[in-house]
């Protein structure tokens, strides 16, 4: 980040990126960031990796540096979703939510890590994150529990059809 925001290189704010992000639910929260760095100290991803820094991520969002944030190998997936950053932020920016909004932008482009896509597909197929198999109900019966009912997927798919078909709404 220091390089891209450094004196020698002119940073051109990418407003298209910022506009797209702002369309997402709570995607505009970074606008309130004043770069105090309160989010940094308790961030597990900051502590345990070299490249993840929530303050810098928010700065890149403010500059609209989309190409450094989203893409096939995006480090945003290193976020542990612990919400310590949101807890510490005096401006109620919720960096974790801004990161999730950028993940939504990656999802729009079909850029998911394989593990993430697998869970999403399980949900889109059966309405649960765990795929059903006969062993599940057998194991439940051992504890006197009834078999699981199927999820009414017709209702679920109607609710999300705007984003699964053509002409995705914001």
């Amino acid at each position: 980040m220091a390089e891209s925001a450094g004196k020698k290189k002119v940073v051109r704010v990418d407003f298209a990126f910022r506009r797209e992000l702002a369309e997402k639910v709570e995607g505009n929260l970074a606008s309130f960031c004043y770069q105090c760095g309160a989010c940094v100290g308790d961030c597990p991803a900051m502590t345990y990796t070299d490249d993840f820094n929530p303050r810098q991520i928010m700065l890149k969002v403010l500059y609209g540096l989309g190409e450094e944030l989203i893409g096939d190998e995006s480090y945003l997936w290193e976020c542990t979703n612990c919400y310590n950053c949101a807890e510490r932020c005096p401006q109620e920016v919720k960096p974790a939510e801004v990161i999730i909004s950028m993940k939504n932008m990656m999802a729009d482009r079909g850029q998911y890590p394989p593990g993430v896509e697998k869970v999403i597909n399980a949900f889109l197929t059966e309405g649960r994150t765990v795929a059903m198999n006969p062993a599940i109900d057998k194991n439940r019966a051992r504890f006197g529990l009834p078999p699981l009912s199927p999820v009414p997927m017709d209702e679920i798919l109607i609710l999300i059809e705007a984003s699964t078909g053509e002409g995705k709404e914001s």
Partner: protein
Amino acid sequence: MNRFAFFPGCLVPTRYPAMEFAIRHTLPKLGIEIVDLEGTSCCPDPIYFKSRDKLDWLSVAARNLCLAEEEGIDLFTNCSGCTATLSETWHLMHENEEIRDKVNARLAKIGKEWKGTSRLRHIATLVRDVVGYEAIRETVVRPLNGLNVAIHYGCHLLKPSKIMNVDDPNNPTILEDLVRALGANPVRHDKWYLCCGKACSNEDLPANMMRDLLTTVQEAEAELLCLICPTCFGQFDYGQLKVAKQFDEDFHTPPVYYFQLLAFAQGVAYEDLGFERQRFKPEVMNRFKIREPIEEPAK
């Protein structure tokens, strides 16, 4: 009887039915009547599906909340992830008219409307606030006196605290108090506040974090690690085994879901609680015996 709708989510009913059994066994003894909702789906999960599209995520979550509203009762969850999703959805729908209108327009297509009449509780706050620690203590027939229990709070029970509204995220006591109600002795390990790492798509990060966390659990000489979220459970059972092998460490503290510990303290046999399926078995619990009725201390 206090009636509450049960929102079981995905992980507990599919992977950990012993936890569901323990909930269904213990709550009626505490005066809670469980109402099962028909047609619930995944909450949906606050990590993967939320990453795909937040508005879809809110819409499916709001549908789940509507199912409890139709019964006219509040609902409770047994998973911190479900709690995060359903609490945040309730909060955003309540605070943000634009989101509420968008989501309700979608719900109208399936003949539903979110009204906000059913509130959500995590099962830990259900027993704290509706039942109370003293009433829990009164159902205990097998006190776990002297059992040293470390607590893993996990993230989504507590944070974001303005939405979850459960306890002070910097110094919570709810799970310590719940463990104390069973006679056990909560011990706080140095890195109690760390995340389980399950929601992170990097491999090394959670492994290194778990190594630090588990090292302090060993130092605290905890006999068990009590937790309240099925996702965290997986990280501390199979995940603990993996981390121990990776770093050649002697990590071995069995994780136990609180309601299984409660069921045991209420007299359910160890063999009936499904512990044999765990990588780390909480056999230390077997030193506790059901007390003779004559030993019941006078109030």
